[in-house]
């Protein structure tokens, strides 16, 4: 691959700088001359969309922190102060709260893209693992951010989720007390969650740098799953990928703007507009939508420790995917069986999400158990077995030939 920079310092200053810190060359080779497979579809723009969301969340978050008060007596009122008094405070808060949802929509598309096209397979395992670490950090950040408005759902969500650690034998209760800084969720908890909620996005940014670095070492996967073999198969990152990414990000932000300006509370819970009350539990505690599939798994197990193990196990499955999938063929386009199981997994994940929002009664519990069992069977049984029994379709010799076969055109002379 033509990974190395074609950059030559032009001016005397660039030559001077290049000998001391070759940063212009680094940017040039990473974001200008970097070869991208020419058959990438729009699912490959979600990396750029996610980067834009991270920048947006950090910017709006820093501005919100200028007006927010992390104290149990003042937090709820300070959020209302942001909404009513602060100039454009409503835009910052709605933008930040809905931004978290958009961030998760984009990350789930990005992850399912990786699962469909086998982007986690050799040599991209480390790239995938770094992505999973980002996902974990995002979940921690999202959870702690949701506690800050100090509404009923903030308080009781924090209580339920921190209590999960109480399931750990022997030391569980000490860990929970340590996390709370008291004998229940309270002011110390809110204060430390604010501190960590501010810290974690910068840790995410750090791991994103590693993620992009790993990506640029192994190169991008593509819809055929066949590695680029010649310069015929790739186009330079700039202008091709750059402009496509900017276009896709713009479209995504139109979708995002629809939420901010027309349905800003659609994804939120009305109970969170009631201030936290430690003596009254809301009738129905639900986490934010992006945690619902994992919450459904937690609730479907009729044992406290078992439920917690399964919930974290669901995420461990994703970490282990590169080693659970035994097929050498990356793209599901050439895997007639896996393709079906992929879509079943998508439906199961959405189904678990829906069940996570329902009250745990009657047949809901039974269906939750069924889907939970299937989720684990997909990763632990189906994925390893498919690679052994499936006959993949013949792979195209190269990306170029796949593209030409699809469009039915002859290579230009």
């Amino acid at each position, binding site marked *: 691959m033509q990974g190395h920079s074609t950059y030559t310092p032009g001016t005397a200053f660039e030559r001077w700088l290049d000998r001391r810190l070759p940063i212009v060359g680094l940017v040039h080779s990473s974001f200008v001359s970097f070869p991208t497979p020419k058959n990438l579809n729009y699912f490959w723009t979600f990396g750029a969309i996610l980067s834009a969301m991270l920048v947006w969340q950090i910017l709006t978050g820093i501005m919100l922190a200028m007006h927010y008060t992390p104290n149990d007596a003042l937090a709820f009122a300070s959020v209302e102060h942001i909404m009513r008094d602060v100039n454009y405070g409503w835009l910052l808060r709605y933008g930040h709260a809905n931004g978290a949802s958009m961030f998760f929509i984009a990350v789930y598309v990005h992850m399912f893209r990786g699962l469909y096209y086998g982007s986690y397979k050799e040599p991209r395992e480390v790239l995938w693992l770094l992505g999973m670490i980002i996902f974990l950090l995002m979940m921690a950040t999202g959870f702690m951010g949701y506690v800050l408005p100090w509404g009923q759902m903030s308080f*009781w969500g924090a*209580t*339920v989720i*921190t*209590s*999960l650690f*109480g399931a750990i034998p022997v030391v569980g209760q000490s860990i929970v*007390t*340590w*996390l*709370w*800084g*008291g*004998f*229940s*969720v*309270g002011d*110390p908890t809110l204060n*430390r969650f604010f501190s960590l909620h501010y810290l974690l996005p910068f840790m995410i940014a750090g791991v994103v740098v590693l993620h992009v670095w790993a990506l640029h070492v192994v190169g991008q996967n593509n819809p055929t799953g066949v590695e680029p073999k010649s310069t015929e198969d790739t186009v330079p990152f700039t202008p091709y990928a750059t402009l496509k990414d900017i276009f896709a990000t713009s479209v995504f932000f139109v979708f995002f703007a629809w939420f901010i300006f027309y349905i800003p509370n659609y994804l939120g819970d009305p109970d969170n507009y009631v201030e936290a009350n*430690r*003596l*009254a*539990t809301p*009738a*129905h*505690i639900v986490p934010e939508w992006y945690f619902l599939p994992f919450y459904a798994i937690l*609730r479907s*197990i*009729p*044992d*406290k*420790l078992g*439920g917690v193990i399964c919930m974290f196990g669901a995420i461990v499955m994703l970490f282990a995917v590169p080693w659970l999938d035994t097929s050498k063929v990356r793209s599901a386009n050439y895997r007639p069986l896996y393709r079906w199981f992929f879509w079943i997994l998508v439906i199961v994940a959405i189904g678990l999400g829906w069940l996570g929002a329902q009250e*745990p*009664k009657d047949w809901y519990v039974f269906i939750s158990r069924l889907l939970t069992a299937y989720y684990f069977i997909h990763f632990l049984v189906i994925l390893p077995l498919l690679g052994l029994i499936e006959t993949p379709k013949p792979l195209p010799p190269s990306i170029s030939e796949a593209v030409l076969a699809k469009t039915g055109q002859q290579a230009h002379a």
Partner: protein
Amino acid sequence: MATSTPDLADPSRRDFLYIATGAVGVVGAGALAWPFIDQMNPDASALALSSIEVDISAIQPGQIVTVQWRGKPVFIRNRTDKEMQDVKAVPLGDLKDPQADAARVKKGHENLLIVVGVCTHLGCIPLGHQGEYEGWFCPCHGSVYDPSGRIRKGPAPLNLEVPAYSFLSEKVVKIG
């Protein structure tokens, strides 16, 4: 007679110094880490609020009074004779977390049950006089407790916690 040449023939002396230096470094890092970790534990002001005194004389039979202790609700339940008979009649073998009712109350005050009002599943507050045994019912994930605060059904693993308490007089209970 000192020489600046390292004593290559006898590496054990130098190895000892490396290991000893490393060990001191590890102990030092650990000693410094502890304050950084412990600062998150409950502080002196949280610990100072660790006991309350409650006047129980006005609690009628069948009534549950909720008081706040360490930021958590505590249920004080003046149980009726029927409730006490019911919970005493339950064989210990039927219980998920076997404990006799007598072990959950103070002698001479068997009618008075004092428990922390936090579900042992994931920390919600159970509702009194509800559920199959008319003890408590947790609306979050459906745990059912009897009038002794013992877990009977649902995902919670343990009985409602009995806090440390003592009778200062016939009328006043000190919790904590």
